[in-house]
């Protein structure tokens, strides 16, 4: 079972599409309606970051089945400017845009696994996993 969906993220309307695809896949994977909403919200935050800071990138969604554990894998990748200080960017309330600074730390809070790989000039990749309970 490796249904994979990818959404190219270039403008604000793509965030709506990304959320929608995420919810669909989460529903198909058996997540509760509450978890579908949480997954859609996390997708909204990381894809908005792409539009806001990197202009364009890609979201890839897939279902995971690892030794009986099932869940959803979400990867948001861009070739934007990258993040110079990841610890700082992951801090609640930190924003270079005068915003709430809740997107990255919030997404980490609601997912089971969260990884941020980024360096200046090297783009940013956020990998998130949520497992079915």
């Amino acid at each position, binding site marked *: 079972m490796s249904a994979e969906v990818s959404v190219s993220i270039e403008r604000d309307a793509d965030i709506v599409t990304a959320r929608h695809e995420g919810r669909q896949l989460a529903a198909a994977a058996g997540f509760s309606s509450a978890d579908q909403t949480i997954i859609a919200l996390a997708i*909204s*935050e990381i894809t908005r970051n792409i539009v806001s800071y990197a202009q364009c990138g890609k979201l890839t969604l897939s279902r995971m089945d690892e030794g009986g554990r099932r869940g959803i894998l979400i990867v948001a990748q861009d070739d934007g400017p990258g993040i110079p200080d990841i610890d700082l960017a992951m801090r609640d309330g930190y924003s270079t845009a005068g915003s709430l600074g809740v997107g990255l730390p919030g997404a980490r809070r609601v997912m089971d696994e969260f990884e941020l790989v980024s360096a200046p000039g090297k783009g940013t990749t956020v990998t998130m996993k949520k497992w079915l309970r």
Partner: protein
Amino acid sequence: MSVPILKQGDVLIASIQAALSDRELAQLHDAFAEQVGRFRSRGVIIDVTALDVLDSFATRTLRSIAYTAKLRGANAVVVGIQPDVAFAMVQLGLSLEGVATALDLEEGLAYIRDVAKRGGQRVR
């Protein structure tokens, strides 16, 4: 798709029908700001029943609408936040602090009438 704003007496009501992009939300904000002044509205109601997600941008925009209304002497109330949506917001760490909320349109209207009766937050 832009959100129609209905004028009911001195209350403006926006009932969002489908998922909105950031641009559409920002347009809603600007339309409210303009109309609250033009119609000297006393209340602003934003019905988000149809929204299946309220993220950081939506939260920020709703807060901003409420604040703009307040500066104009009007009260804003957000109605119809779905239970799953509220739950996800709390988990992520988003809040609508400083924004009045009500269960549905009817309660939202009652709230605005109530505040008006008590003298509300009108700045004179």
